[in-house]
């Protein structure tokens, strides 16, 4: 079963930096489409019985379809998946933190082997189709979802209204039901204090900035998620093109600022990067926030050519491998926060050493 491969390894498709354009700054792209079944109450009103009927309808549609992308997926409900495994999916960004908390039989996920496609079942909407790819590839994500969406629609009675578009549980998603987002690493803009200004401009363009794990999460290690806020009154293509355009501009700004930093304050920058690398390769106890902070600097060092031999892929993998659920899965046991901090220091040291050749 493909989901177990996914759970037992760190790798997911979006980490494959070499396959993504601008992947030094744009870690990953994600597009999500919210779909609901006509007349069926939205998930927050569902009891187990009606919730299971929704799962069965989705399962039937999936079984009926011979579409290759769907054939390559697994459907698992959360009563069959322990909390630790659900947290692993969350840490890989495949499901939301809220969804990972649910153990109900009518909540679940459909996912393929490399985690490029992951559909949440009965999260805030009956079905949330998601595609994740490395680097800046929003249109590619959308096109892959289009194929799946067209296919599922043959067998599912989607809630759709001429005027309001795809009907969603929250009115902030109605219309296209689409949320497109990019995960950005912006250390130079952060160091030079330009982020607030940029984010204000971005807000005025109908986009929003969030932390690493989406809504209500902090931006650790200079990682930011940029996504569209408006879902009604714009076409999917317009939303994607706008977000891609804005992202390209931010990438350009980040690159220019990196060059400037390197030229104007080379000692400070090299010092900062060297210290971060030194701490990561020597520390015995490491909290997740501290690790992200230093990893951000090391990543900048790799991008600037100051640290050689480390692959961007390894750094993407580390972002996920150092999270609590991944550490515990690797250790094969539950661990107290302090134990995890010790294990984390070990994992980081091991990874950085392995790739440093």
């Amino acid at each position, binding site marked *: 079963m493909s989901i177990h491969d996914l759970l037992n390894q760190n790798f997911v498709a979006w980490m494959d930096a070499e396959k993504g354009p601008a992947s030094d700054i744009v870690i990953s792209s994600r597009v999500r489409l919210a779909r*609901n*079944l*006509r*007349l*069926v*109450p*939205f998930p*927050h*009103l569902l009891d187990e019985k009606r919730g299971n009927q929704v799962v069965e309808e989705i399962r039937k549609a999936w079984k009926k379809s011979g579409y290759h992308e769907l054939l390559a997926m697994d459907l698992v409900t959360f009563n069959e998946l322990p909390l630790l495994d659900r947290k692993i999916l969350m840490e890989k960004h495949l499901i939301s933190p809220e969804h990972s908390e649910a153990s109900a039989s009518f909540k679940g996920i459909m996912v393929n082997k490399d985690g490029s496609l992951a559909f949440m079942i009965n999260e*805030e909407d009956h079905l949330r189709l998601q595609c994740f790819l490395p680097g800046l590839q929003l249109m590619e994500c959308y096109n892959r979802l289009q194929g799946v969406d*067209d296919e599922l*629609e*043959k067998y599912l*009675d*989607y*809630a*759709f*209204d*001429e*005027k*309001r*578009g*795809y*009907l969603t*549980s*929250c*009115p*902030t998603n*109605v*219309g*296209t039901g*689409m949320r497109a987002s990019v995960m950005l690493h912006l250390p130079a803009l952060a160091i030079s204090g330009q982020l607030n200004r940029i984010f204000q401009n971005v807000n005025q363009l*109908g986009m929003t900035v969030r932390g690493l794990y989406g*809504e*209500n999460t902090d931006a650790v290690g200079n990682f930011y998620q940029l996504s569209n806020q*408006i*879902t*009604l*009154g*714009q*076409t*999917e293509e317009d939303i994607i093109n706008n977000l891609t355009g804005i992202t390209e501009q931010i990438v350009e700004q980040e690159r220019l600022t990196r060059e400037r930093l390197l030229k104007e304050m080379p000692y400070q920058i090299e010092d900062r990067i060297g210290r971060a690398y030194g701490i990561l390769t020597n520390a015995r106890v490491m909290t997740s926030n501290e690790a992200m902070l230093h990893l951000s600097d090391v990543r900048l060092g790799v991008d600037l050519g100051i640290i050689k031999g480390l692959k961007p892929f390894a750094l993407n993998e580390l972002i996920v491998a150092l999270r609590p659920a991944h550490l515990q899965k690797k250790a094969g046991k539950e661990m107290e926060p302090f134990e995890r901090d010790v294990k984390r220091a070990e994992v980081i040291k091991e990874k950085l050493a392995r790739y440093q050749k």
Partner: protein
Amino acid sequence: MYCEECKVRPATVHLTQIINGQTMQTHLCEQCAAKKGASMFNLNIEPGFSIPNLLGTLFGNVYNMQEVSTPAVLSTTCPNCGMSFERIRQTGKLGCSECYSAFARELEPTLRRVHGNSQHIGKIPKRGGGKVMLKKKIEELKSRLQKAVAREEYEKAAEIRDEIKRLEKEME
């Protein structure tokens, strides 16, 4: 802490306003805050103020802007799922697909405020969407039929009538 306005319900909305350098604090319940028309954008939101609450405030303002009498709106429920607009206001979530038509009037300003727009122009599902397109075509033909009858062009009217019948069959 009780609401400073009605002094009955607990205060859940805390407003901080800075006017000419003077800081003013106001503590209100959700209903009174909505009545005051405290717009989401000049509210200084306290930490812990959740998204549903924000949306709730949004809905609250909306129905006040419309000046519809409170009991009438609040007693309306969605015929499909039984959701009331009051609960939508509280949770920020609709109950089912039919809530969108049951509360179309109440939702309109909210959608405009959130999206700056209230008409979908994106993707249309082929299956459901095919019907939407047929429906549009039939409506257009029906108005042409009336015009033809009014002009006493009966031959043309019969043609249009047959076309409508054919399309209606296709819809089923």
